[in-house]
């Protein structure tokens, strides 16, 4: 479904990604893990067109997308929930969610999706008519994820969805990803809760200083000495 081939990215002259290649198959749940500054968020930004690769190509559903602007990539079915909870402060929670669905052709089903989001994140239902600016940090995070899902994407990319959530909620969000995948959405996730996420994913990639240094099934990676030492402090 998604094929990233030999992608290199530079911020000005600083290399951020070097010759990164990986694939995500339809229906898979795939994680990218690694230290901060390794380039994980940059991978997601490159796929969604916010950053242009310096070398390499990206294909989505057999079509080259690396030269397309972000809105065309989004229209092809890729939803990107960036790190940092960027919601619209002056819009209500409901309006924020509807923004996520504005490119959908099945507008009649949008109300149904809204109800799905409300059952996934009940606090959003409670706060439905409040402005985004009144939400707490954790509530913003839930809204950002739900807005990404409102697009009913083929591929959902989540950048640290558990950031700033209470233990109960953070567990719930990671397991919700599994549920979303079961319903047919392919997921590419960047997450620092390495142990929790690697238990659930089909495949994981370990990024270090802009390069993929290890890949494998989630459970296999958890067994890896390198991962245990470098990322789990074991």
């Amino acid at each position, binding site marked *: 479904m998604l094929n990233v081939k030999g992608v290199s990215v530079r911020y000005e002259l600083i290399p951020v990604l070097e010759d990164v290649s990986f694939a995500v198959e339809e229906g898979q749940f795939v994680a990218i893990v690694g230290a901060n500054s390794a380039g994980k968020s940059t991978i997601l930004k490159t796929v969604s067109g916010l950053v242009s690769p310096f070398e390499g190509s990206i294909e989505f559903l057999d079509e080259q997308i690396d030269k397309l602007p972000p809105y065309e990539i989004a229209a092809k079915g890729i939803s990107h929930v960036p790190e940092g909870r960027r919601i619209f402060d002056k819009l209500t929670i409901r309006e924020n969610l509807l923004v996520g669905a504005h490119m959908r052709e099945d507008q009649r089903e949008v109300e149904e999706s809204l109800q799905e989001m409300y059952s996934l994140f009940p606090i959003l239902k409670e706060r439905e008519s409040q402005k985004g600016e009144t939400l707490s940090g954790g*509530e913003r995070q839930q809204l950002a994820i739900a807005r990404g899902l409102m697009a009913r994407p083929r591929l959902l990319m989540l950048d640290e969805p558990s950031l*700033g959530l209470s233990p*109960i909620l953070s567990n719930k969000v990671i397991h919700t990803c599994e549920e979303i995948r079961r319903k047919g959405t392919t997921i590419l996730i960047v997450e*620092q809760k390495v142990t929790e996420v690697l238990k659930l994913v089909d495949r994981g990639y370990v990024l270090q200083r802009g390069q993929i240094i290890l890949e494998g099934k989630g459970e296999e990676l958890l067994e890896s000495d390198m991962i245990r030492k470098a*990322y789990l402090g074991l």
Partner: protein
Amino acid sequence: MAILEAKNLNMYFGELAALKDINLSVEQGEILGLIGPNGAGKTTFFNCITGFLKYSSGEVFFKGRDITGLPPHRVCHLGICRTFQIVQSFHEMTILENVMMGSFCRYPNTKRAMSYAVEILEFTGLADKSDQIVGSLTLADQKRIELARTIATEPEVILLDEVMAGLNPTETEEAIELIKKAHQKGLTIIVVEHVMEVIMNISHRIAVFDSGELLVDGVPEKIVRDERVIQAYLGEEYHA
């Protein structure tokens, strides 16, 4: 004696009670962990203490002095400084310049502000990146800069709002060491964090907020076994 004390603090946003009659104090040299579900009022509590919000009623005392209603810059000058959960860096400026924004609070002279900021950058392990533009950094690095800028104001009390969110387990260990180092400098610390390994590791005492109320406070061992805390916040897996 309590270095910081909130008495009967109430904060309403329209009809919504974000804080209900909070009575909470922190002793000099103490590390107080503040936990609770998302939306429980933790950040609002920080906003009230530091003057970013005018609370509806109640009083705040710092070293016995009533600081109720003081604006943020006065509170900072007195010796209470905080970080922001949603980072508030100066994106176009370098790390050094960002930290100087803190040290200017004590050292109006640019040269002295700079040399103190450099000292803080060394203390926080950011010295080798000091000339990088903050906007180009990861969120985790930006959070570290928030902490550095806060310490650069030479505070007596610091309020840390999720400075460790987004760190992997190894990076979290490093951040814990940094907070312990700051504590050894004599700082009193209130820390809001969802990573329980951190809270349990560094807090002398933990206060739990739920729906704007102080649910319970006590030593960490007591808090993790409290049925109400498990139900509202930690989840069933914390049942021993």
